């Protein structure tokens, strides 16, 4: 059960130096969160669902070229642009810093999708379908969303809740980095990442590995970017959405000839 006096504040750090663009997080998310199978048709119509996606950028010109990868998921912004535009209060910020989507309140106006600068909110254009056998692998802890509503990354809140209950049952301790990793209560993408490029933690916990990055980025906001001691930055920082996800810059040991 969430602690009312001292709530968690969940956050994530994504180290782009470690990301190889392998898409393991995308597959893990798809399996964990009952996301329908994306067919070729869905992609061609640009209506594929992915709660976390790997954005691919090319740098340079062939043959002097490099691929860059960036996993993008819901940033769980503190000043989330999607929240004030919802006419039915289907998306709101909870006390644990999560941007929550309540599926049963959603009426499918798609204002939030249009107002999200990161394009991480997905609309269910179709009734969710799986091949008959795959229905047996649906995660019972996650709602199967119906057609006509918006959905997005939840930071795998079902795992966080399970973690809170199980840790509480074993003696009322508080979830921290160690207990999250020990019980596999990390979000599915974090758990699946083979290079540990994704880190998840509680910013209210002083010992968490992600806190130094958030402290550094918060201490040097906006134009103070060059004074930062870590490689941290936020996506579209100038929009002041204050995401709970921080990216760490890639260090290029072998830069392209002639720079970029």
């Amino acid at each position, binding site marked *: *059960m*969430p602690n*009312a006096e001292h709530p968690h504040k969940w956050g994530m750090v994504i180290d782009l130096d470690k990301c190889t663009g392998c898409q393991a997080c995308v597959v893990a998310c798809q399996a964990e969160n009952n996301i329908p199978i994306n067919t070729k048709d869905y992609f061609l119509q640009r209506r594929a669902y992915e709660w976390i996606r790997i954005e691919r950028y090319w740098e340079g010109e062939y043959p002097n070229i490099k691929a860059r990868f960036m996993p993008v998921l819901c940033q769980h912004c503190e000043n989330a642009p999607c929240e004030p535009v919802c006419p039915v209060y289907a998306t*709101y910020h*909870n*006390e*644990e810093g*999560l941007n*929550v989507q*309540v*599926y*049963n309140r959603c009426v499918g106006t798609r204002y939030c999708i249009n107002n999200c600068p990161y394009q991480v909110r997905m609309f269910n254009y179709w009734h969710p379908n799986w091949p008959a056998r795959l229905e047996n692998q649906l995660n019972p*802890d*996650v*709602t*199967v969303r119906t057609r006509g509503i918006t959905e997005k990354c*939840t930071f795998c*809140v*079902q795992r966080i*809740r399970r973690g809170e*209950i199980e840790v*509480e*049952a074993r003696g009322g301790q508080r979830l921290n980095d160690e207990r999250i990793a020990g019980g596999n209560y990390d979000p599915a993408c974090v758990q699946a990442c083979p290079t540990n490029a994704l880190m998840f933690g509680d910013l209210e916990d002083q010992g968490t590995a992600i806190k130094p990055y958030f402290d550094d980025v918060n201490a040097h906001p906006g134009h103070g970017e060059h004074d930062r001691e870590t490689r941290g930055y936020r996506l579209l920082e100038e929009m002041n959405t204050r995401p709970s996800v921080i990216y760490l810059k890639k260090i290029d040991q072998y830069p392209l000839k002639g720079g970029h």
Partner: protein
Amino acid sequence: MAIAGLVVTAIVAFILVVLFISWFSNPPFGWGNAPAQPIGFPHTVHAGSVEEGGHAIQCEFCHRNVTSGAAATVPAVEVCVICHKQVNGSNVTTDAVAPETLINIQRVLDKHAEERPIDWERVHRVPDHVRFVHEAHIRFLTQGEERTVTLPIGDEKPMNLPVTTAEACSVCHGDVAHMEEVQPQDGQSLKMGTCLDCHRENNVSTDCTICHK
């Protein structure tokens, strides 16, 4: 004019009837009765006290996961056969029990021999987008220091906690040990309002993601 008035009245009446039925008809929420079970299972005989002719089997002997996980779980046929390997037509005569009882027991044994599950009808069902964790609620009612609470469900009398597991189950499910056929009880609606009342009463978070994920 008179016809227009009649049409409007008919449409309004139709909408009201639809709303009324949809709001009150489902068994755990409204007035409807639970569906008939494929095999008559008297909880009175299994869970009822010995003085009343039952066998006082604890709830969690069959609903094994109730104290350790989200779902209470309906037992596998093997759990029935633990006892009914002995307690069946070959050892019990119709002098002691009604013939239908032996027929029902034989049907359980047949299912076991066929290696098929029994398709029990679900009585207490929350909607698909709700996740209810039995373990946490049983733990709240059966553990911790002594305290008195008034839960906004059932008869709403003050309760002295902690209680036994069986008493904890009956807070929401009613006195199942005295039910020939499990039915939702008066005042034990499983509507969201009941959940929220109880969570507010006991200073538990009412964040949406507690139940909806």
